[in-house]
């Protein structure tokens, strides 16, 4: 029984780490730039397809494909920001990104077809004293956590990162301090698109997916960003892990329906008790 619990908890944490990576990208576009990015899911889906194609056509090790999906989606994100998103604010940017979502998803259906794909590379698990740890999930989770922490480090320690955080706190003030906000926002949006793409690359190892892949994660990612505190990157990681863990515990002790409902109910409760998220700044 103990082993079963540990297996379930590890699996929940692994899923939580992947949620966190998806939410991390959203945190950048939403928390920093205040763009409710409805196109977030398609970036994730494109990452998955990049991995799938690199693996199936050229036989590239799927783990290395994150070095493909990251720059490609970074470039796409930067371009989208440079030519489209930058020119809009507020609800208009939400409409705009929804338009982008419709265009890319539809083109993907036409281009890739609606059938399910998957990268068959790691399957099975590590059996550690009766605790089963899924190979694809733990590897994906490891990369996801590394990626989240790397982003955290990037934001804390690099010049661009500091500029990004300054914009998230007060855009006007940042401009006054000589930050080229347009340029930094383009970089932010680029990273905000590249991060879910990496998550998508990792998911291609875990799930069978089609061009609708991103839809499943979007709602949860929004919720996790708020749960962790908007603009708070460690918060998103902790929020993601919390949701993953809570879902696993309730799924094992209750059932799956209750576990998914519980995820959302907990989000409402935490917001009621701490309106700016678990790690958020007090208002």
């Amino acid at each position, binding site marked *: 029984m103990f082993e*079963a619990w540990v*297996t*379930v908890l590890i*699996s*929940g944490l692994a*899923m939580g780490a992947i949620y966190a990576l998806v939410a991390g990208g959203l945190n950048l576009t939403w928390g920093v730039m205040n763009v409710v990015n409805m196109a977030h899911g398609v970036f994730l889906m494109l990452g998955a397809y990049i991995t799938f194609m690199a693996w199936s056509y050229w036989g590239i090790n799927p783990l290395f494909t994150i070095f493909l999906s990251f720059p490609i989606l970074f470039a796409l994100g930067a371009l989208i920001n440079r030519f489209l998103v930058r020119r809009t604010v507020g609800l208009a940017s939400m409409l705009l990104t929804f338009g982008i979502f419709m265009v890319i998803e539809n083109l993907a*259906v036409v281009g890739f*077809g*609606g*059938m*399910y*794909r*998957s990268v*068959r590379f790691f*399957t*099975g*698990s590590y*059996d550690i004293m009766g605790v*089963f740890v*899924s*190979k*694809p*999930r733990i590897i994906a989770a490891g990369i996801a956590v590394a990626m989240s922490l790397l982003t955290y480090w990037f934001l804390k320690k690099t010049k661009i990162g500091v500029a990004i955080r300054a914009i998230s706190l007060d855009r006007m003030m940042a401009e006054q301090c000589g930050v080229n906000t347009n340029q930094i926002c383009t970089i932010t949006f680029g990273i905000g698109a590249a991060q879910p793409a990496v998550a998508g690359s990792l998911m291609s190892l*875990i*799930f*069978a*997916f*089609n061009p*609708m892949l991103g839809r*499943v994660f979007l709602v949860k990612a929004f919720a996790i960003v708020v749960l962790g505190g908007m603009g708070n990157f460690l918060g998103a990681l902790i929020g993601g892990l919390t949701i*993953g863990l809570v*879902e*696993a515990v309730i*799924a*094992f002790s209750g*059932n*799956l*329906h209750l*576990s*998914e409902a519980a995820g959302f109910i907990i989000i409402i409760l935490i917001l009621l008790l701490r309106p700016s998220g678990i790690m958020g700044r007090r208002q």
Partner: protein
Amino acid sequence: MRSRIIPIILLTLFVLGTIVFGASCETKEPIVFGGALPLTGWGADGGEYNRRGYMVWEDMVNAAGGILGRPVKVIIYDDKSDPTVTTRLYEKLVTQDKVDFLLSPWTDDMVMAATTVGEKYGKTIVAGGATYPAIWERGYKYVTGLLPNSKDYLGVGIRFFSGLKTVALLNLDLTFTTGFADAAEWNFPREGMTLVLPRQTYTGDTTDLTAPLMKIKAKNPDFIVACTGGAEDATMILRQAKEIGLNPKAWWFTIAPVIPEYIEVLGEDAEYTLGCSEWEPELPDTIEDFSIRAAFNQRHREMFGGEDPVEDAATTFGVGQIMQLAIEKVGELDDEKINEALHELDTSTVFGYYRVDEAGKQKGKVMYVIQVQNGVRETLWPFKAATSVLRFPTPPWDKRD
């Protein structure tokens, strides 16, 4: 200001466009059949295969001189995988396009919606691609089925493993998969099987099945029936079962094993899994009377770049054939008489036997039990049509090579 006038004009045009959009196709000569299929949205794949079936049927009927000496015309609309749109399109087909006959949409929700329209106008529909018993339990007069309803659909597989004692049930919470799971629960006690724990329901958004699979593992059932909706959730179940070492004697999946990409996505993990198929392209003629099956296969390959027809294409071809047989039997285009004929017909098509009860529920169709063996779907039952023998019990994951 001037540049902003243009959008207003455009919008006005679009509004007018919608109202004007409705000019129907004017062809008097052919007999017109109309239907809607999900050509876009989540059901796009199945919809496309369905469309191919109708296209091949139209082509072959016309090549053979049509029905009652008149050519046949098939109109297919896209319902965007949305039952609301289905309702609208069938209304349009009946009242605006004034089609002579309705063709079946794809999957249960759409069939529900379409048959409601059909019932209202007294237009009969032979439902293809739908198994939810509720379709025939609503007391509708103008609907018959081509596929067995889900009680039979599941019954085939469960009867096949009649000797097994303990069973666990997984269920995706969509309409038709819930119908499958209900049917499975209805069938278990009749074959002496007991559920070791309540059915484990998951949603389309579920990303981690470790918890329910661990619970099932603790009960160690002989048999696992997974009412899956497609390759996506079946992949997740099998991969995670492998990860935690869940080893029943047999795995039974609904839908997934007959989906073309299932084996491709899962690779060797798909080995030994069982399912049931409504139709297989290469079967000996001994089982059902497949008089024109070879012609259908060939025409399908010619029309669609050499691809073999799949189950969903055969279904709609079968729907067409049944309509044709009923019309030819009646000899005129009278909805009432043809509906009666559809309830009385006892015949067979490319798809298989067709015989319905008073409610219109299919009872003649034979299902095939299939198993994935060496990367290929092999037919195990009916024995007369078997291409291979059952591999049983399923070896534990760590004992496979």
